[in-house]
């Protein structure tokens, strides 16, 4: 009896020793990696958070030694949060920021590393719109999805005003004509809200000023002061914007509604037109019925003669960045590549109904007619979103209050030019380092 017991004990002890040896062996072979991912996309693409949590889980199944901790960020603070983390050089390993300037600012500050250093060209060439984060020959942020800004219209209201719901306005003059007819029929032509931190001002800059420019780099002349708003290339679009407001084509309370309330006007069937994101469209379809959703591009302005005139307005919106203090940059890059794997990209589409930024995406998955239309618009031509190319100061302290002034009827374009000039002058004075960076970046070729 005793001998049996002793033997059993020895065997179990040996067993335990072997197990722990094997365990530590495997640990040494692939050390545990934990990556913190400050994630944001839900505001653009509802369903994104769920997709991301699943993606992290799936990756962990494939690579049990890697855990991705997904930390969803809130819309209003994820910029500031990351900037704070960047200052302390600690926090997330992977993070999101709005594309172009917010990403490149971090590149200039040394807070992120180029993903093109860690992801092979053969892979990156499938990712769409990467040139939004191109600087110094490197790609600094990865795209994941595409958000377009179409002009959406309510077909039922068109019919009510005697307009053909299948024929949206193509040129600006047609647009004005449609608005006039709608107004005559007692329908508010265009919906919006500019109060508080609404982005309507910068949006109008993006969709209208673009038509006068030959390339995004053109904005540099304005930033350096070489050109000013008296140049129609940079100023004339305000006349168009002002026209819309002056003729009363916007809802009369536009200046006392905030952004969300403006978006909501279309949901409630109160306005005929609204500039909105792809994500909004799906909600609109639920609210007023998909058969009433009409989509078109921003109407083209006759005297705008820029090469970008026929571009569409789509952007990757937010970009995925790898931080410079991340200890496992290669693993982080692998995870980003995993996010772009066909299965994951298809799942993205199905769960969020927004277009993945990958040319390997299986278009056949798009069965919804509205989504088909959105996809067609997004891939129809070159895409530029001008707001990505201006300094934050010009955005929040320039185009935004300017939009408020125009829509509240408090000023004409000439008044607005003054304010914008002032903002630019102060930016040059207060941020000479940023100005130098812009010159280096946009002044190429």
């Amino acid at each position, binding site marked *: 009896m005793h001998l049996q017991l002793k033997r059993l004990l020895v065997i179990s002890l040996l067993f335990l020793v072997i197990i722990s040896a094997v365990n530590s062996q495997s640990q040494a072979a692939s050390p545990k990696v934990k990556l913190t991912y400050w994630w944001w996309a839900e505001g653009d693409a509802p369903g994104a958070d769920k997709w991301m949590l699943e993606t992290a889980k799936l990756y962990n199944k494939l690579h049990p030694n890697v855990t991705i901790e997904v930390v969803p960020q809130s819309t209003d603070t994820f910029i500031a949060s990351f900037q704070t983390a960047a200052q302390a050089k600690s926090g997330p390993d992977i993070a999101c920021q709005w594309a172009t300037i917010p990403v490149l600012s971090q590149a200039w500050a040394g807070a992120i590393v180029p993903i093109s250093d860690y992801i092979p060209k053969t892979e990156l060439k499938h990712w769409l719109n990467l040139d939004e984060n191109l600087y110094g020959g490197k790609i600094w942020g990865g795209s994941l999805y595409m958000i377009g800004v179409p002009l959406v219209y309510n077909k039922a209201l068109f019919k009510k005003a005697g307009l053909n719901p299948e024929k949206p306005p193509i040129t600006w003059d047609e647009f004005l004509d449609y608005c006039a007819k709608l107004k005559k029929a007692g329908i508010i032509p265009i919906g919006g809200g500019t109060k508080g931190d609404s982005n309507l001002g910068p949006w109008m800059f993006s969709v209208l000023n673009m038509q006068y420019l030959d390339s995004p780099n053109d904005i540099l002349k304005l930033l350096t002061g070489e050109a000013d708003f008296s140049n129609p290339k940079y100023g004339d679009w305000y006349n168009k914007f002002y026209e819309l407001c002056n003729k009363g084509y916007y809802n009369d309370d536009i200046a006392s509604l905030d952004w969300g309330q403006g978006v909501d006007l279309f949901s409630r069937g109160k306005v005929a037109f609204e500039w909105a994101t792809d994500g909004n469209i799906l909600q609109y379809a639920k609210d007023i019925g998909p058969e009433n959703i009409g989509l078109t591009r921003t109407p083209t302005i006759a005297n705008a003669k820029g090469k970008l005139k026929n571009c569409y307005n789509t952007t990757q919106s937010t970009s995925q960045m790898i931080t410079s203090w991340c200890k496992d940059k290669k693993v982080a890059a692998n995870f980003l590549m995993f996010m772009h794997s066909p299965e994951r990209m298809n799942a993205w589409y199905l769960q969020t109904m927004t277009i993945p930024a990958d040319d390997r995406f299986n278009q056949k998955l798009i069965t919804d007619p509205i989504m088909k239309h959105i996809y067609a618009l997004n891939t129809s031509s070159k895409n530029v979103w001008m707001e990505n190319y201006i300094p934050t100061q010009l955005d929040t302290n320039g185009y935004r*209050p300017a939009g408020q002034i125009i829509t509240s009827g408090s000023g004409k374009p000439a008044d607005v030019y003054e304010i914008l000039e002032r903002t630019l002058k102060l930016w040059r004075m207060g941020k000479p380092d940023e100005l130098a960076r812009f010159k280096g970046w946009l002044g190429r070729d």
Partner: protein
Amino acid sequence: MKSHSATPYLFIFPTMAVIALIFAYPICEIFRLSLIVPGSAKISFSNFQFIFSDSVFWTSLKHNLSLLILVPIILVLALIIGIFLYERVKGWLFHRSMVFLPYVMPIAVMGITFSYLYQYNGLLNNFLRSVGLGQFALNWLGNQNLVLPTIMTVIIWQQTGFGVILFLARLLSLPVEVTEAATVDGVNWFQRNLYIILPQLKSIIIFFTVNEAISMLTWVFSYVYVISAGGPGFSSYVLELYLWQAAFSLRSPGVASAIAVFLLLAAVILVILSFRYIGREEDAL
């Protein structure tokens, strides 16, 4: 009481540590930060140059100064309500409670509530239109000239209660003989209040005025941020918001610190002046 040499210092140490960190350090830092610019080690006044050449700075300052008009308004309202409460008619305790309630409500919450009420097609305007006063249904939040006065009404709504409580407390602590005497002599109600009661409140009126004045200059961020974020345009910008923008939007600690230095010096001067004025008043009494 016998004092042990170490004990008092031990007892004040935690407080002094906190004060050193929260007050001494930042006050020195804002001076230092305001005088440097990125990329150069030399002292430079360019941050001050920046703010003084920025019309939004002057606009913000103008707005803060125009908020001072609220001080007499709130003062008068609080005095009136306080005096009527002092009558102690039936239910006065209920009214006192109600009038003071706004003061404890969070500004963030009430700011949002008021912004819904004040929308162009919101509650207030719809009400005015429904009773035929449509011409008074103005664009309270969307008109550059109206947004600041509209925010002022919210400040009045909140701050009046504070004054009411102060004045009422003082009134209730007044010796009864003073007010009784006036009645006997056949003085009428208005004269009694104006010439007998009011002077008793002098010191507390001064305290309230100084307190509110400083608040108008330096403690209105929450109202503006929540209701209008400074807009439309820059028509409701105040210095605190301007500082906030410089720190977190323009991301220039130098400029933000220059604004902080300005605010600090302004507050200090204001307090010194008011203490001197109070001192003179009390000497004169």
